[in-house]
């Protein structure tokens, strides 16, 4: 009788894909299990929030401002054709608060914070620092992963609101150079069309993006192998996967918010 010596159920690639999905699922489930358990490393969460938030602030400020200016510049000619330039603040307000603010913040943080978490944890993994924590009876998942994921989940929504505000200011600067309008009337006009649902959706999106960035970075770092090459790979994969998931989430959340808006 022939003995089945197959090593894989489907093929190496497909098996590895499903094993990866299962491992990521277990990792995420472990986060929710550990996050409510003592000890709470509050100091580490604050330290990490500082790392994520304050250090990303200059980049977010610059990018948000440029997005506001460029988007206004690009939108003006189309509105001018219809004689509707007075709608510019409302259009920019909706675009920035609903979509651009959270998305730009998330993409910048995926590159800056996600890669940094992936590389840091990856380096700790390959140099046995994570094992060293474990043998000292310290839960490395709780100390390293939970604190970082909480930090990104808390900080990225704040950065996103800040980015939207700066983007609107950039838009105002562009509008002001053309029409010399006041900042108060610009912001009033911009916010007149923004509903509670828009703000709520924007913050929810940023929360989900923050969680994704932290989780993907931590997962990739925590599972880094093959020495220094693995660290680079973990950092790279953390950015690529986080960005990919952010776009998928954007699509899903927009669909859901539209569904809520119209029904």
């Amino acid at each position: 009788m022939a003995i089945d010596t197959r090593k894989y159920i489907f093929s190496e690639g497909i098996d590895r894909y499903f094993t990866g999905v299962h491992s990521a699922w277990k990792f995420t489930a472990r986060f929710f299990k550990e996050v409510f358990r003592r000890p709470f490393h509050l100091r580490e969460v604050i330290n990490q929030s500082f790392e994520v938030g304050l250090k990303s602030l200059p980049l977010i400020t610059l990018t948000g401002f440029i997005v506001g200016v460029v988007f206004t510049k690009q939108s003006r000619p189309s509105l001018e054709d219809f004689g509707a330039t007075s709608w510019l603040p409302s259009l920019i307000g909706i675009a920035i608060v609903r979509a651009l603010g959270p998305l730009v913040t998330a993409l910048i943080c995926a590159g800056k914070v996600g890669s940094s978490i992936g590389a840091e944890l990856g380096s700790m993994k390959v140099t046995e620092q994570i094992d060293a924590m474990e043998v000292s009876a310290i839960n490395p998942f709780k100390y390293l992963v939970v604190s970082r994921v909480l930090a990104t989940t808390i900080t990225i929504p704040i950065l996103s609101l800040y980015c939207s505000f700066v983007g609107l200011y950039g838009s105002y600067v562009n509008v002001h150079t053309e029409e010399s309008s006041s900042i108060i009337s610009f912001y009033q006009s911009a916010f007149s069309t923004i509903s509670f649902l828009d703000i709520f959706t924007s913050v929810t999106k940023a929360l989900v993006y923050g969680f994704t960035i932290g989780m993907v970075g931590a997962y990739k770092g925590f599972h880094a192998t093959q020495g220094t090459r693995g660290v680079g790979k973990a950092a790279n994969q953390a950015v690529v996967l986080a960005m990919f998931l952010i776009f998928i989430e954007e699509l899903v959340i927009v669909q859901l918010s539209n569904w809520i808006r119209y029904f």
Partner: protein
Amino acid sequence: MFSYPTGSDIFKAMAENPKHIINYDEEVIAITGLYKSFDDIPVLKGIDFKLFKGENVAVLGKSGTGKSVLIKIIVGLLKPDKGEVLVLDQQVDKLNTKELDALRLRIGFSFQSSALYDSMNVYQNLAFPLTMNVQHLSKNEVKDAVEEVLESVGLKDKINQMPSDLSGGQRKRIGIARTLILKPDIMLYDEPTSGLDPITSAEINELINEVQEKYNTSSVIITHDLTCAKNTGNRIALLLNGKFLKVGKFEEVFESDDEHVKGFFNYNFIQ
């Protein structure tokens, strides 16, 4: 405490085995029929091993024979495929997280790479396991504990330095100090002298013996360095092809007629 050893000091240390009272009635580690494989490749093939209270056992063997795997199983970083691993009368692979953590507080693990936390200075590296495991310690108590272990390893002046500013030997010592801060009953050393020059290696060997005497620890020293094994081990266990080929005093193992044992020692001397 750790004056730079002269040539005669080193030869003297090499000639003397550590003097220590060993209680052969009390087993701190008892392993029976231990098997472990990775991706269907067997690494440990039926290990039986005992470590007695106050004893240092040096596990010798070629690279890739599973020496480090053995101590990682002892500390619960890896799970055995088969066999019983009793550490301080507790079966390691049957413990829950809380019980395993409590056991780990009684085991010190010194990593081959030292595994110091890059983002912390020496003080923070040493204080970290203490503050995370012992509650309600004042800042002064933590500082005193850190200074005490740093003094034990002769590096009190490095307290504010970052790991990247330390030499390989200093990193090893700080790594050992970090494990000593929790006053363990068992010490596991993974290649304590690898990558070090002979003089620094002799200092580390001396430190291992001092730790045994001062802290009354029982230790497993994983090494492929014959000098380290001879100077630190009360017994030597030679691990070849996933099994202990010979266990006994250095001279007994060294003078064994077994072809494989002879081959290992001859190879090391040629190296």
